């Protein structure tokens, strides 16, 4: 019999989920597009090279048409993926960085540490993220890092709760008691047993924080307090596109579709990961 790690079974389950597999492929294509944007676009996102053809509809020359300022719209959409994905991944990374230690501490020590962390989470649960984000965004005049920060500020809660729940469940397990009986320190137990066993919720929390951050960015940009122009943000483009909706549908439809596809693919990928990883610890 071949040795099979828990990860192997998770992969088997994931691979059986066709929707998640397709979503993962789409996400991969989007990431590649974002990374190699200069190679697949004809101009930069700022270049107003086609002022004469402003508002041009999609054609073989301009796949997604030309926008109101004479910029190739396909280039803008592709560069928009860069902005969206960068914000999504950075914010998710920060969420995990905040969420893991807080969740692990709250789950392991319970008592007042847990109480304090839970009250902190309650704070974030009574303030709607979007409103707070709008307020913060307005107060700080938006910008890339502000948005990442805001997204992480509200994204860590989910990661923290997931890690806390997992740590709480595993800390009662007998292998943790056995390690304690061996004289292992709490830091050792958290690092070596509890966090590795919480890796599934951490991965899932990370992936599911990405679409939330992307939506937050798009929403803020849509309202004009997100990433400032000329940085190409899909939310911003949708906002602009709305003004020309009656005459130039492409300016609204393409960024809308790009945002929807990206968010949907990431969410489905994350859902698939969750379904695959959740039972993996039971092994069978």
């Amino acid at each position, binding site marked *: 019999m071949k040795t099979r790690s828990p990860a192997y*079974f998770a992969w*088997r*389950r994931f691979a*059986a989920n066709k929707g998640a597999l397709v979503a993962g492929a789409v996400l991969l294509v989007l990431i590649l597009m974002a990374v190699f944007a200069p190679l697949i676009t004809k101009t930069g996102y700022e270049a107003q090279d086609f002022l004469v053809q402003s508002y041009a509809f999609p054609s073989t020359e301009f796949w997604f048409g030309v926008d109101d300022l004479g910029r190739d719209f396909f280039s803008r959409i592709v560069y928009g993926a860069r902005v969206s994905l960068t914000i999504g991944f950075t914010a998710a990374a920060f969420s995990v960085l905040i969420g893991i230690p807080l969740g692990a501490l709250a789950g392991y020590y319970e008592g007042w540490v847990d109480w304090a962390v839970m009250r902190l989470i309650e704070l974030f649960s009574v303030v709607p993220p979007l409103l707070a984000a709008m307020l913060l965004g307005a107060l700080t005049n938006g910008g890339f890092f502000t948005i990442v920060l805001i997204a992480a500020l509200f994204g860590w809660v989910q990661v923290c709760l997931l890690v806390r729940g997992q740590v709480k469940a595993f800390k009662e397990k007998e292998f943790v008691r056995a390690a304690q009986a061996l004289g292992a320190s709490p830091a050792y137990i958290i690092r070596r047993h509890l966090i590795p066993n919480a890796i599934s919720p951490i991965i899932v929390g990370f992936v599911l924080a990405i679409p939330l951050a992307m939506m937050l960015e798009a929403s803020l940009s849509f309202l004009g307090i997100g990433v400032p122009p000329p940085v190409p943000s899909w939310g911003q483009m949708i906002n602009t596109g709305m003004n020309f909706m009656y005459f130039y549908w492409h300016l609204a439809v393409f960024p809308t579709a790009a945002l929807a596809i990206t968010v949907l693919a990431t969410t489905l990928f994350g859902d698939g990961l969750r379904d695959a990883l959740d039972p993996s610890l039971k092994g*069978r």
Partner: protein
Amino acid sequence: MRLLDVVNLTVSFVQHEGVVQAVRGMTLHLDAGESLGIVGESGSGKSVTCMAALRLLREPPAKIAADRLDLGGVDVLAARGRDLAALRGRVAAMIFQDPMTAFDPSFTIGHQIVETIQAHRATAKAQARAEAEALLRRVEIKNAGGVLDAYPHQLSGGMLQRAMIAMALSCQPQVLFADEPTTALDVTIQAQILQLIKELQAEMGMGLIMVTHDLGVVAETVDRVLVMYGGRAMEQGPVQKIFDAPLHPYTQALLASIPGRVAGRQRLVEIAGASPNPANPPKGCPFHPRCAVAEARCGVEAPAFQTVTAGRDAACWRLQ
């Protein structure tokens, strides 16, 4: 009268990792008023057999096939929704292993017994409640009125198991399936519950199927024993004969390895090896990798489960 008649029952579960054959060609029967013990370890297919007899497995992932699967004269495999519901509880009732999770936490014990009575018989609520209270008293619950109005979380495991027995008996079933009814309970409570089930069976003239991993429970309660291993029947016969002179090497080894038979600290007779993995069972007889007297053909083809002497069946090449 034949209450349960199962011929060549196969139950498999379709899973990601492949098809798991939980029960492979089981044949068993139960007559009115008779008690049968099904003994086997975890994964032997003993519980699945009972669940399949009442069609309580979720299909899919479960797949049930049999040449015959009759309960109280009704073809269970052909029965649909309403017919099944009429069968369950009325013809055959079941007691489960973990009484703590067997009751709906949102309703009182009384409510759950009353609804069982009303599901099968047109009975006024007050009448059903009175019957429920009498049943609780019959299962030796002193404070029957109080338990009637209690929620499951307010009662101890032993008390809940008594209440579950009362609920199972509420429609005077002809067959009672008891699936490891004492495993989750403490030793002294176990003995009380076993004695109670035995008494009630005799009193009501029910058929009883006692599913257990514990040979002691079998020795205490039933007339006839069926030993299962790796999804197959190994041996079947009257309880006293099985204990005195087991036929199948598995039964022999199992009886020999029971701890505490004699005084003094000592090494026990052990069965080498591990129980078969249901996802990947050994070819041939499931016991052959651990069997002390296995022959070449044991690993090739499974022996048929056939009569050895009157009233005793076994599946072993050495006995054919």
